[in-house]
């Protein structure tokens, strides 16, 4: 339709499920017809062109985060704790942010690669051989939670509960805003007992670091964080680390199913994976709308926007602006690489961006190694209902070259639990740091062992590669397994060990090369 006269003026309601499902046609209209948009019903302005979004994100003095960056939170008008730094302006923001920036530096995050890969393998290996799986339930909801929990030091048995509580906080009823409360959203009391425990049991995790590090607080005093501040920070990091990367992984599954030619290009040339992740973040931005509050009057497109107004910065719209990205509404991993706003921009740019990129890249690498082809089962796929983060709640896919018509019921694939007389006590199950005293010195590997209904499976990661284990046997405290390694040479490695509490010692026979001893410590 080109005749504007009989077209309704463009309207964007963040709670309208239609726009939520596919906001892009309305984002395009906003960019072209209402680059400064005002929604009277919900009381906010919005910008949608790349340059305007970038300017608003960069102009921290005029566009404040001190009342929050989510529409419902800004409107709730609650006093946010200082340590919830993402919803603060300088200098409060700076004091806490600097500390977290350092704790999540590129060097530290990239050092987690082997563990991220092992977690991915642990999620994906059990699915090999099935004719379907779910990008969210089987990977997106699991791996990022395990990574962020490992970083923070949250015990494995509590990780799922932590992720679920984070997700639940963001859930909304269809068509309704999110409910906001200080206690539920920000205080993070769920972590209280871990923090108490870590005070007396220091480790090398981030919780310990937060307990020990001194920082210059917003008033300029050098001191340690209070327990409340640590709770706020841990709560923030755990929530941010789970939900958003989960959405990125969902979009990876969806877009690469829709664009099989590009998926094949990646399989041919895995070096394309980093730019694929950037294109996914641009094309399907998990956090498409970021809120700010005006600290004074701002003039934009000949309109005076009064002090105190709420400005929604539609980075999901800016990321498709043709002025910046030619043919912005098409997914093209080969496009000219330019910075996008997928992680936001300016002083509040995502502090976990390095980790998210790492997780996204490895999740895709490990998925493609096992599943070169898949198709989305749209009959059973569902978008998550949140007004803050946009992505899939469940994304079941058919494995292989063509959708299998008869197999469309997700329940049909859940394997019936095997009748097992007794699931053995599983001191072997878990993650082990295993060191082989090899001919060229100590070799560190990460061993991840799982037991599902009595069936053992596992992976071992060393020298940057992860391989699935075979022939796992467990006889009380005596265990053995075979690892078929491919680097530095292709060889069968036979481990046999004895477990005593959290320690394991044993022998490893490396093909024709010889036998060596190993030790392992449970993590």
């Amino acid at each position, binding site marked *: 339709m080109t005749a504007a006269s009989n077209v309704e003026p463009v309207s964007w309601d963040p709670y309208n499920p239609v726009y939520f499902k596919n906001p892009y046609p309305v984002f395009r209209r906003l960019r072209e017809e209402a680059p400064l948009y005002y929604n009277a019903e919900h009381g906010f302005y919005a910008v949608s062109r790349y340059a305007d979004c970038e300017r608003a994100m*960069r102009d921290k003095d005029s566009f404040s985060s001190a009342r929050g960056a989510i529409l419902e939170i800004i409107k709730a008008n609650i006093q946010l704790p200082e340590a919830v730094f993402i919803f603060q302006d300088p200098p409060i923001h700076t004091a806490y942010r600097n500390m977290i920036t350092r704790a999540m530096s590129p060097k530290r995050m990239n050092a987690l690669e082997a563990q991220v890969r092992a977690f991915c393998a642990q999620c994906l290996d059990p699915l090999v051989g099935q004719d379907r799986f779910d990008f969210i339930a089987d990977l997106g909801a699991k791996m990022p939670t395990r990574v962020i929990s490992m970083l923070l030091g949250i015990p494995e048995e509590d990780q799922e509960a932590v992720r679920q509580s984070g997700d639940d906080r963001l859930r909304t009823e269809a068509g309704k805003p999110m409910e906001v409360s200080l206690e539920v959203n920000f205080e993070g009391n769920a972590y209280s007992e871990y923090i108490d425990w870590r005070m007396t049991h220091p480790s090398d995790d981030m919780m310990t670091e937060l307990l020990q590090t001194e920082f210059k607080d917003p008033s300029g005093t050098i001191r340690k964080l209070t327990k409340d501040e640590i709770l706020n920070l841990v709560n923030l990091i755990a929530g941010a680390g789970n939900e958003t990367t989960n959405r990125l992984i969902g979009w990876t599954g969806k877009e690469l199913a829709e664009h099989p030619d590009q998926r094949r290009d990646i399989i041919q040339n895995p070096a394309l994976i980093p730019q694929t992740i950037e294109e996914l973040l641009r094309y399907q931005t998990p956090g498409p709308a970021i809120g700010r509050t005006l600290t004074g009057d701002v003039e934009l497109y000949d309109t005076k926007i009064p002090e105190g107004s709420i400005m929604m910065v539609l980075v999901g719209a800016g990321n498709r602006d043709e002025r910046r990205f030619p043919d912005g509404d098409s997914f093209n991993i080969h496009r000219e690489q330019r910075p996008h706003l997928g992680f936001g921009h*300016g*002083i509040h740019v995502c502090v976990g961006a390095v980790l998210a990129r790492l997780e996204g890249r490895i999740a895709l690498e490990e998925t493609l190694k096992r599943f070169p082809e898949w198709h989305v089962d749209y009959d059973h796929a569902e978008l998550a209902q949140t007004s803050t983060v946009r992505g899939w709640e469940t994304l079941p896919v058919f494995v292989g070259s063509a959708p299998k018509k008869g197999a469309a019921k997700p329940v049909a694939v859940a394997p019936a639990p095997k009748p097992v007389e007794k699931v053995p006590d599983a001191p072997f199950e878990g993650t082990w740091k295993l060191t082989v005293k090899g001919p060229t010195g100590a070799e560190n590997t990460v061993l991840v062992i799982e037991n599902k209904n009595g069936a053992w499976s596992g992976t071992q990661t060393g020298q940057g590669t992860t391989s699935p284990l075979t022939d796992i046997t467990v006889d009380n405290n005596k265990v053995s397994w075979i690892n078929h390694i491919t680097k530095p040479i292709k060889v069968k490695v036979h481990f046999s060990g004895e477990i005593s509490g959290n320690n394991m010692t044993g022998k490893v026979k490396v093909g024709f090369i010889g036998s060596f001893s190993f030790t392992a410590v449970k993590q």
Partner: protein
Amino acid sequence: MPKVRFILHNGKEHTVTGDVGDSAMQTAVDNAVPGIIGDCGGNCSCATCHGYIDADWLDKLSPISEDEAAILEGAMHVESNSRLTCQVKLSEELDGIVIRLPISQV
């Protein structure tokens, strides 16, 4: 107007012109030089504008601040001539500065 010569990790070169007072990062981003991201917008907090300053220019730059040092300490592929290009402010004295870019910013 000072010129900046960016040399990408793959050897490709981009020579761009910026205004006095602008940062080298901003000049790169404004001119779509690949290999510099500048996620934090020049606030010395993200390490995505990392570059290696050629020896002839290193001493002409302002000293590394405490904040920049902390970011560089946590960045990847850091060398003795590493700087965050958002902290390199262009001046006539820096006309012709050569900045090489790392293999990756992330």
